[in-house]
């Protein structure tokens, strides 16, 4: 049923529909609405789940590692500092092959307390072995969380569904909230492939010496690779029931584009408008939305970008001493192709600064008017201070 809900509520509804049994979370702006909704659902019985009111994000994920190891579908949500605090355990969750799902609200990292959108927090965790999906709007958030359980439980990897602070978490949009029955058809009950069981005792996570550790890590790498293919299968199943699909990437007007803008998150919505406007002015511009960041869809990137003349990546994040992170990944993906266009890297919207149509158009013209990028990363709209 279509309702106008906040992005946070879309998350909560998805968790409810996924019949999660344990939620463990610590509040942090702007994730707080998610946990508040879920607390209420647990309290009024809408959701048959235990809500663990842990005392920190680190403990929140620690508790879920315990829960998931005992074979129960688990959920947490966090943002910014909270995600950073979980860092050690993000590695642990994937190393332990636990299909935990997290709603991660992209928020800037302190100091300088900043509660607004910035992707550096989630991207700084790109090495932790979590599947990462970046969402553009409320519907996608709800759908992605449900799909995250299906995918995660297939490959035994944790999944992070990422949404922009405020622009997505606190924005009301019409979202089709499905009935329980089709969701049940799509997402069967969790059948853990291993769990703590007094009838079949085992020791999980013990000392592993050099002669076995590497194989386990390779195993995770293989799972990630399979996740790329299985993501497609999961989307097919989802499409069959709910008639919606997003794709690991979504190309818009890329076939004959000379310049392709690459975005993620809510900036994509603004960019769609900008591409329409520029096209109507005769510019041969296209847009590539990147949804699936981990595993990084290298083949799809190559397929969709090598034909363009120039690529302009808009990063709402930065890796100090290097460049914008999406730009890095794309450059890496294109590196081994026979001939690929130059990749222009733009940094915009950090700490919640608005990425307006003007900013995006400036990015387009800057790209068009330069044969090669003047610098590896161009920071948009910096003011004199």
């Amino acid at each position, binding site marked *: 049923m279509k309702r106008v809900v906040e992005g946070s509520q879309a998350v909560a509804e998805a968790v409810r529909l996924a019949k999660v049994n344990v939620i463990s979370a610590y509040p942090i702006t702007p994730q707080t609405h998610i946990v508040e909704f879920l607390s209420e659902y647990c309290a009024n019985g809408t959701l048959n789940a235990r809500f663990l009111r842990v005392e920190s994000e680190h403990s929140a994920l620690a508790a879920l590692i315990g829960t998931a190891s005992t074979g129960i579908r688990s959920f947490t949500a966090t943002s910014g500092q909270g995600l950073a605090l979980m860092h050690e355990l993000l590695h642990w969750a994937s190393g*332990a*092959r636990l299909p935990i799902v997290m709603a991660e609200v992209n928020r800037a990292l302190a100091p300088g307390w900043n509660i607004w959108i910035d992707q550096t927090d989630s991207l700084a965790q790109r090495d932790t072995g979590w599947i990462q999906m970046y969402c553009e709007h409320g519907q996608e958030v709800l759908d992605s969380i449900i799909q995250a359980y299906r995918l995660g439980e*297939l*490959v*035994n990897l944790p999944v992070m569904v990422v949404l922009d602070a405020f622009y997505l978490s606190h924005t009301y949009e019409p979202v089709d909230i499905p009935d329980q029955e089709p969701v049940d058809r799509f997402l069967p009950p969790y059948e853990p*492939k*291993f769990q703590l069981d007094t009838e079949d*005792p*085992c*020791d*999980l*996570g*013990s000392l*592993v010496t050099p002669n*076995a550790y590497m*194989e*386990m890590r390779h*195993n995770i790498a*293989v*799972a990630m690779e*399979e996740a790329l293919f*299985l993501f497609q*299968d*999961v989307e*097919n*199943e989802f499409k069959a029931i709910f008639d919606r699909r997003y794709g690991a990437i979504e190309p818009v007007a890329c076939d004959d584009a000379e310049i392709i803008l690459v975005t993620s998150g809510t900036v994509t919505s603004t960019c769609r408008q900008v591409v329409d406007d520029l096209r109507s002015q005769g510019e041969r511009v296209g847009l590539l939305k990147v949804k699936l960041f981990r595993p990084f869809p290298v083949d799809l990137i190559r397929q969709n970008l090598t034909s363009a003349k120039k690529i302009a990546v808009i990063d709402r994040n930065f890796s100090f001493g290097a460049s914008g992170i999406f730009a890095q990944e794309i450059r890496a993906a294109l590196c081994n192709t026979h001939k690929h266009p130059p990749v222009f890297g733009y940094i915009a919207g950090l700490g919640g600064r608005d990425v307006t149509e003007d900013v995006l158009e400036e990015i387009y013209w800057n790209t068009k008017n330069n044969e090669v990028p003047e610098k590896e990363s161009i920071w948009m709209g910096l003011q004199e201070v």
Partner: protein
Amino acid sequence: MADQEEIKSKVPLLIPRSCESTLSNMTGSWRFLKPRYEEKTAPCSSACPAGEDIGRIEMLTTQGLFKEAWETILRENPFPAVCGRVCFHPCEDRCNRGDFDEAIAIHTLERFLADAASRNEFKPSIEKLTLKKQKVAVVGAGPSGLAAAYFLTLLGYTCDVFEAMPEAGGVLRWGIPLYRLPVSVLRNEIAYIESMGVRIHTGKRISRSFLDEAHNQYSAVFMGCGHSRTRGLNIPGENMDGLEDGIAFLGKIRQGENLSFDGPIAVIGGGNTAVDVARSVLRLGGKSILVYRRRRQDMPAFDQEIKMALEEGVEIRELLAPVKIEKNGTEYTLTVQPMRVAGTDTDGRAAIEPRDEQNEEIIVQRIFKAIGEEAAEDWYNPPGEREKILTLDNSIIMPRSEGAVLVFGGDLTNQIKSVVHAVASGKEAAIALDILFQEGSDAVESRLKDYAVGNGPSLSMEIYMAGPRSERENHIVEYDEINTDYFELAPRVTQPRLLIEERRKTFEEIDLKISANVAIKEAERCFNCGLCNQCDNCYLFCPDISIQKDNSPQGRHINYDYCKGCGICVVECPRNAMAFEEEST
């Protein structure tokens, strides 16, 4: 969508999930010190002249295995009921528990076990060797003779015991008063000895010529005639009517004579006989005055007996030496000279000399002398030091080129004239003879050392017969080798006794019995020094679970595949029944 199986094969799950046991790690290879079970010797068993395995006796008692405990005594001493009443228990003086709170009442427990055996009519199963060809004659059915016959019988020899009196027992039957040893108890004990195969011929007095003719039938003769003649005072008036032999007096009472007294009676002497006489006299109505030439602490009588004598009202007059005896109407005057201490004698007792005072005259109804005994016949005595004589700790062996081997034991040879030393004589003689018959007299002295309990001189028949006790180390466990953390202070049992008023009136046994639960409680105080009582401390505290319980006699074994040699078991063994030494490479 690919099915589950396909997904499983494409996305294999290799995680650190462990369920193999760690038993493939042989951590025993870490070891450089190795613990093992090693039983040692308890000080009490070494102090006991009969070498009784006291630690084990108490252990079996705590487990309620009274018959087995009693049998453990019988392996080393055929007289538990007797010793449990009359022994001076040197074991208790060496008891390690004495350094913790109070010594174990070993004496009381021995009596309890013997009484329990009698009451329940236990039939003991004691190991006996196969019949040997040699026969041994024993002269005198006193404690040393009966013990010798008993042990020789266990070793497979046939023994004939010849006793002049109408009943066997020697000093046990004809000397020690009834209030210390009831006759039924003694008869029971002697019956047991006979049931083992010992043949006792009463009313048969042996003549001197027997010693020379014995070899026709016997390979050896054991002389256990004892000291039944009181020494002379060598003072004027000695042969008077009013002066009687103390030993003979006790014999009269035991033979059933009806005696009574009225008025003061003097008893000259300081040994057990003198004290027995004094205490018997007062039970017959007299007022006993014990006259001794040295001090009370120099009296050779057992401390316990002296104490009880005093409680019963015997008066002890110290430092008075008898000078003469004169008749004084119907009474007698005993003149005594006051003495004083002048240094120490070679045996550690006070040397005395006359004091510069007037002699005293003590008027009494009767006088008994009990100043020490000697053999009734000269030929009872062992020969002096000569070639070819083996002088052992409790016996003397005289092999003869013609004739049966002569063996002397009991009071004839022992420095301390006690029942338990008599038993020690019998055992030593039996083992010595067995060695002599099999290997010749030259082997005796050196071989005997192998059968000592601790560092000797007590011998163990069980060790000689290669029983489990022979596996133990001779090291005597000291108090500081006991881990007293596992014991709580607990008072020693007090054996009930007749009230003093009751004691004076009758010859009834003074010490009363204790119940089984009291006995068990007392036995539980025993440290069982050096013996494993399977308390399970070692098993419990092993961090590597490398002590495993099993059905072996030890009840457990150390699994050296895993034992890291930490040594906790050794330290936590309360009773030093383990050893810890360098691993041999």
